[in-house]
């Protein structure tokens, strides 16, 4: 069953000025986490370094402003996750690597001690992730942090928008190591569900990944690709798309083509931002049982 989420039910908004906007979201299942520590991470997405055009007259400055905005947060996140399209696509392999080197240099200014990366189709679909791997390592991996299991799924290195059977088998094997109530976070670039296939906002075999995740009670997916905030449920699994850091895209179906929304000089950087995710330990829950003074026969 597929439901739209009322975002007020689970998000609280904290504006931080400048280019950034932080959304704090509690992860389901944190009460089961092995390590009972709250933590906080930041999702940054779709900086498209190398893009030039009217949708962003400050194309060379926006990422730097975003880095400064993250660095100015009251508390630095435990880690930062870039969910793809670090660079804007180019047919020239040399230029692709130049853009990746420049991007890496800019984000090296982030104060957070741990910064993780995954590719988008602009980074990886023309060379099956070769350049990305040279600069940032594997395109799919897992890590654990304070009791939460994180899984990075690559749905872009195959230009057909496929995760592929080999990676799905890897995902299944990894999930078999997890308890059914373990808190699990999945990062992808494209949505795993058919958000708007007419605009290529889908993963061709994404339903297979969702099927693998479905037996687990506490799964949350964070993704990019669509350059706007969006929240969706497939069954009990929440999917949260992040804003981009170069140009916003329209709501699916709101205009004939998926061309970027125009830059508004009256509201520069509108529609751009990043996301903070606060993994909160739930308040103590009390299960109540009422007893009579005398048991009935």
């Amino acid at each position, binding site marked *: 069953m597929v439901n739209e989420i009322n975002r007020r039910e689970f998000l609280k908004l904290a504006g931080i000025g400048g280019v950034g906007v932080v959304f704090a979201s509690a992860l389901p299942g944190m009460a089961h986490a092995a390590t009972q520590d709250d933590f906080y991470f930041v999702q940054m997405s779709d900086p498209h370094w190398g893009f030039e055009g009217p949708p962003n007259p400050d194309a060379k400055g926006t990422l730097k402003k975003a880095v400064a905005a993250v660095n100015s947060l009251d508390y630095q996140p435990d880690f930062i996750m870039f969910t793809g399209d670090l660079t804007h*696509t*180019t*047919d020239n392999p040399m230029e692709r690597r130049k853009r990746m080197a420049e991007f890496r240099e800019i984000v090296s200014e982030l104060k957070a001690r741990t910064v993780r990366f995954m590719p988008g*189709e602009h980074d990886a*679909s*023309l060379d099956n992730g070769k350049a990305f791997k040279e600069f940032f390592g594997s395109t799919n991996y897992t890590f654990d942090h304070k009791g939460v299991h994180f899984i990075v799924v690559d749905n*872009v290195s195959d*230009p*057909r*928008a496929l995760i592929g059977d080999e990676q799905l088998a890897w995902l299944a094997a990894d999930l078999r190591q997890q308890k059914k109530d373990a808190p699990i976070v999945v990062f992808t670039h494209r949505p795993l569900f058919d958000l708007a*296939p*007419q*605009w*290529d906002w889908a993963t*061709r075999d994404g339903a297979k990944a969702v099927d693998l995740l479905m037996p687990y009670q506490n799964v949350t997916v964070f993704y990019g690709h669509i350059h706007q905030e969006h929240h969706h449920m497939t069954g009990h699994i929440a999917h949260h798309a992040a804003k981009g850091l170069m140009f916003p895209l329209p709501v699916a179906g709101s205009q004939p*083509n*998926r*061309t970027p929304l125009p830059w508004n000089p009256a509201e520069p950087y509108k529609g751009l931002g990043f996301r903070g995710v606060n993994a909160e330990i739930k308040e103590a829950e009390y299960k109540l049982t009422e007893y009579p003074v005398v048991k009935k026969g």
Partner: protein
Amino acid sequence: MKLNAKAMRIAAVAAVLGLGSTGAYLVAESAQPKEKVIKITATRFNYTPGEVTLKKGVPVILEFRTLDVIMGFNLPDFGVRADIVPGKVTRLRLVPNKTGTFVFLCDIFCGTGHEEMNGKIIVVD
């Protein structure tokens, strides 16, 4: 009764793909279709023609070629897609069962203009 080998081959392809209910299926390259054939050429980053008008209920064969890299043809509203491979002809039989304007797009990332590579199928009564 002697069955036509080509007809059997087409039926077999449709059966394997399980696409009968969508009104569309891939047709073997060697088949000689009797339906109207509409040739569509894919180049980075256009389809030519980019707009095709069809009649509801009238079957057609969409015949694709690519002049450069591998491309995709995806018509989500009819639940059909195909790879368009360099050096090969891809045929897709379509029986449009609803009227309207429907977007088709390249769903294999092919470069800088990939996101603008799409077209329309207009189905009329």
